[in-house]
């Protein structure tokens, strides 16, 4: 098995999209241009059997290895041909050990990576002294009627939706152009004090966004924009990527109503799962939980040079 930077990107994109979904697709990964490192896992020099991606950046003289902004995981996938359970386990272990070694060899001062939820075997990282920490997302199975999905909503959530409708909130889909979406989310993220990656945010709306891979839902009252949710999807999963509301509007239940519309739209587009794409913030988690989803863990691996680790033990205890 050989791990090396990908030369034939099209080959990588084709296989990556098949296994890692929209976050491994060509459309999505080109949002990051050449700064993204694509790593191929090859059976021999040529046969690509897996891969992943990461971003390496320099800050304060240190190199950091991390996920691209707005991407929840490193897209790791690999194709196993083993039929025997023990051999399949051993192959997965071997792949993970190689991935771990490759990441280690980048000699970053701080590494913070996350893996797709279907990657479970992080033992080689534990043995290589990484901290393996569970993060969580919420997912709703869409293989049932919308009435049943709605029946699983928290009653407070249903009441908030009903109130928003009663108050005259209307929802439209895909009514905003790239510039409006960028300006809207730039504003709401700034207001929320979140990190904004301007270039990538622009690219998501100007380059990535197409009808076949994403949609937005906008809420209005009296022709005034109250909030927007932007979702991206592949053939099986729809992800809640960005959402924001005008907190000064005084209208309740806007975001609740928008999410309900997004779930409906995801089902209409043939997706099997609606994924809230990470729910680690206490307030956000409670909001998402109100839609009756299933809590799904996925794993992050963290490692830092000793002085940085010691500092982060005090500042970011959840990582170290």
């Amino acid at each position, binding site marked *: 098995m050989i791990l090396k930077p990908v030369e034939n990107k099209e080959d990588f994109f084709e296989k990556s999209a098949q296994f890692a979904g929209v976050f491994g697709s060509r459309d999505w990964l080109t949002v990051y241009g050449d700064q993204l490192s694509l790593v191929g896992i090859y059976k021999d020099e040529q046969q690509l059997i897996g891969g992943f991606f990461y971003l390496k950046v320099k800050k304060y003289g240190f190199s950091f290895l991390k996920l691209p902004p707005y991407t929840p995981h490193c897209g790791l996938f690999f194709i196993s041909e083993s039929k025997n359970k*023990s051999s399949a*386990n051993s192959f997965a272990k071997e792949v993970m050990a190689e991935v771990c070694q490759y990441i280690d060899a980048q000699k970053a001062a701080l590494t913070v990576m996350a893996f797709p939820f279907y990657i479970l*075997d992080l033992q080689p990282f534990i043995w290589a002294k990484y901290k393996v920490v569970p993060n969580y997302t919420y997912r709703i199975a869409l293989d049932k009627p919308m009435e049943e999905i709605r029946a*699983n909503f*928290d009653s407070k959530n249903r009441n908030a939706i009903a109130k928003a409708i009663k108050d005259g909130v209307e929802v439209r889909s895909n009514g905003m152009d790239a510039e409006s979406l960028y300006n809207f989310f730039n504003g709401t993220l700034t207001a929320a004090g979140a990190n904004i990656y301007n270039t990538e945010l622009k690219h998501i709306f100007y380059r990535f966004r197409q009808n076949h891979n994403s949609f937005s839902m906008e809420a209005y009252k009296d022709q005034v924009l109250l909030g927007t949710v932007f979702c991206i999807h592949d053939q099986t999963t729809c992800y809640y990527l960005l959402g924001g509301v005008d907190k000064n509007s005084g209208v309740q239940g806007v975001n609740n109503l928008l999410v309900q519309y997004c779930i409906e739209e995801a089902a209409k587009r043939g997706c099997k799962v609606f994924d809230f794409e990470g729910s680690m913030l206490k307030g956000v988690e409670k909001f998402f939980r109100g839609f009756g989803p299933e*809590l799904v863990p996925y794993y992050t691996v963290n490692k830092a040079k*000793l002085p940085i680790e*010691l500092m982060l033990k005090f500042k970011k*205890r959840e990582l*170290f």
Partner: protein
Amino acid sequence: MPALEAFVNKHGLLFTSGAWTSLYDGDQLCRCAILNNNNEIIGCFVYYRFKKSIFQFVISPPYTPHIDLFCVNPAESVVGKNTFNKELAEALSLYFSSLKTHYLSLNLPAGLTDTQPFIWAGFNSRTRFTYVIDLQQNESQLWDNLASEKRKSINKAQKDGLEISETHQYDVVYDLVLQSLDRNDKAKNTGILKEILFKYATPSNAFAFLASKDKQPIGATFCLVYQHTALYLFGGFNAANAHHGASVSCMWQSILKAKQMGLRCFDFEGSMNESIERYFREFGGTLTPYFCVEKMHPLMSTYFAIRKNKPV
């Protein structure tokens, strides 16, 4: 605590049962009940505390895979169940924080995945792994899922005339287990080990297999029965007369015995040690994560980060 014992019996719990907890020193083992607003018992868990030097420690009880946390979730809706789990984890994080120990490390049962409230309360949530074999497979499927090396070892043991049989000679099992623990400098709490073998184990709640060559015992495995699962708790071998098919054959017979007993799973009960992980992996189980919540004072954590080890 008769009410707690009745609750434990009703739900078929093992590690919180009186029979199990009586194996431990009563001052060190804490058995806790979880009460609802009407003061009725709706759950329970267990942990072990001890003092080393000036430091207080709280850990999962030795030779017990997890804290056996169990709680009846009264909610019917998906949201209600998730919310109850969240509240339960939050209450537990508050309880464990109130113990004000210097080091806390508790393994949660595999089905309990929501550790978010612990993370929010400043605990670290760590991922651990075990291998679990699905015993719904038939014997031939179980055999086919073994690594070829394991199959060869079992065949070799048979060819070399090793006798593999179920045993109730727990003194022999104890001796072999102790030899293995000694070799790895892990021979701690041997009193508890004795209690498990000589006081707790009965044919209905445990079983052991012994490998002998020329009437000399050379390897053994010991498993507990917990609800629908067989838990491999410990094993050992005689290094002087080692045969690489001895322990493998005992384990294979343990798997078959668990299947004959109508159990659904065979759990290797943690496979985090790199050298033994491969040994377990080759029996063809499914890698199954479980969570461990940890809390250490940052200064203590810093000290152990520099030493690159852990306090226990």
